[in-house]
């Protein structure tokens, strides 16, 4: 049985935001909702590192634990999905999520939150696969087509990896082995930080 995971290789991410765009296009998310975002630490300075982040599909997910209506469920592949028909838009999943993944379109008066929207690992929702309702509420269901999330598929540097945990870690492990030259050098550190280069 597969265990689906995302992994963003910080040594490769170039903050092109292609994943964000691919996601928006594949899932046709509403305005103001970004299921994926790229965060750059030390922007414009030495040691600038970027990471693409979305729902990480946690095991024992905090959002599931705090949801007042218990609208989350985890698929056999470890993908955390939710039922928008039950969701009341209380925002608790956002308070609990370690990654800031849940998004809320503004709906109605006084900034009231609409139903939560988040990354589905391109696996749709509880509706019938590829139905109109699923498309409208959750966006793409590429998993049902045997495909992986579009963000990772379209990543220009293949920094963002998605798929079964074993495959993802195999790819990453291989990369680390080839990348490490003198005493296991790190890509960003080696490239942008002479001090780091010396200490290695």
């Amino acid at each position, binding site marked *: 049985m597969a265990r689906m995971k995302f992994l963003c290789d910080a040594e490769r991410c170039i903050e092109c935001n292609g994943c964000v765009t691919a996601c928006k296009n594949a899932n046709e998310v509403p305005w103001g909702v970004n299921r994926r975002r790229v965060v750059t630490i030390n922007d414009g*300075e030495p040691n600038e590192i970027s990471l693409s982040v979305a729902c990480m599909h946690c095991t024992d997910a905090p959002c599931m634990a705090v949801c*007042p209506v218990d609208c989350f469920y985890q698929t056999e592949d470890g993908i955390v999905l939710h039922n928008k028909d039950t969701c009341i838009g209380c925002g608790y999943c956002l*308070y609990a999520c370690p990654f800031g993944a849940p998004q809320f379109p503004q709906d109605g008066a*006084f900034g009231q939150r609409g139903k939560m929207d988040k990354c589905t690992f391109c696996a749709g929702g509880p509706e019938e696969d590829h139905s109109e309702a699923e498309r409208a509420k959750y966006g793409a269901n590429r998993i049902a087509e045997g495909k992986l999330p579009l963000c990772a598929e379209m990543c220009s540097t293949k920094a963002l990896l998605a798929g079964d945990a074993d495959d993802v870690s195999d790819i990453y492990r291989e990369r680390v082995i080839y990348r490490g030259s003198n005493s296991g050098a790190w890509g960003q550190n080696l490239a942008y930080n002479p001090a780091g280069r010396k200490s290695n």
Partner: protein
Amino acid sequence: MVYLLKRAWSESPLNAVLVPMLLLVLLVTLAPLVQAADPVADPAVKGNGYQGAEYWRDVTRGVAGYSATPGNEAGVLINRSGDEWRLVRNQQVKPYGAWLLGGTLLVLVLVFMLLGRNKIKEGRSGRTLKRWDLVDRVLHWSVAGLFVLLALTGLSILYGRHFLLDALGGGFGGFMQFSKLVHNYLGPLFVICLALMLLKWLGRNIFNAVDLRWFARLGGLFGGHPSAGYMNGGEKMWYWVLFFGGVAICATGLVMDFPNFGQLRDTMQDANLIHAGVSLVLICGALAHAYMGSLGTEGVFEGMVSGEVDENWAKQHHNLWYDEAKGHKPPQ
């Protein structure tokens, strides 16, 4: 051809002299440049030596970066306080709140079984005194009605998934959607009604020496009836619990009700915990208040319905107010 030229060059005696000379020139000219660019020599260069482990430590500490994606805290990779909030809510507020509610109900049942109804000792006189104006009663019942609705919907949001999900089945989603709307829209109305009620009754609820004696005798729980004015010590205490608790739940409720003012997750997490904790205490207080104001004491409920109370009830429970209302001089 190229190969031959290369070979000729590499075998030329000139090569042995030229290449080291060129290298020397390069080194001499570039050395100062290299020195200046070396961050080790210039500690002012920001980010110097900021390496892998250190970087990840900062990220898990919640250090914010830049994100092209708009939105509150989009640059924060790790939400540090989320875990803490979840643990306090799920492992403290929820179980302790349930014990508190259950304990309060149990105590009230025990009190009723052991002490029974607090009757009007001299029986009804048939004459009544005006105790509550129409405004008082309207305020009381608006606050009470809204409180009950907010408590029921709030408890559903806190505990509903554990029992309502099975009880309501397919109707659960709709009920919870309704609960959230009721809670969010009636909340601000409750704030207004509660504020008006607290303001109107502020003057009557200042503690005085009479209340001290009332508390010293535990409000006459074990026989006798300590003197009391319009409000007794216990009622004043409930007023102040409602005052401070009310301010707390109203303020925190509004913080969560209007997420469009840019408040961040930390603020809303704290607001949520205070809101839930204080509300649970107030619900327990309200249960006790409702018991004492209806089943627990004879002759008190009608006061808040018709505004009139029996004179003998007034004499028994609020003797100082009774004397005042009847124009008697307080006993010296």
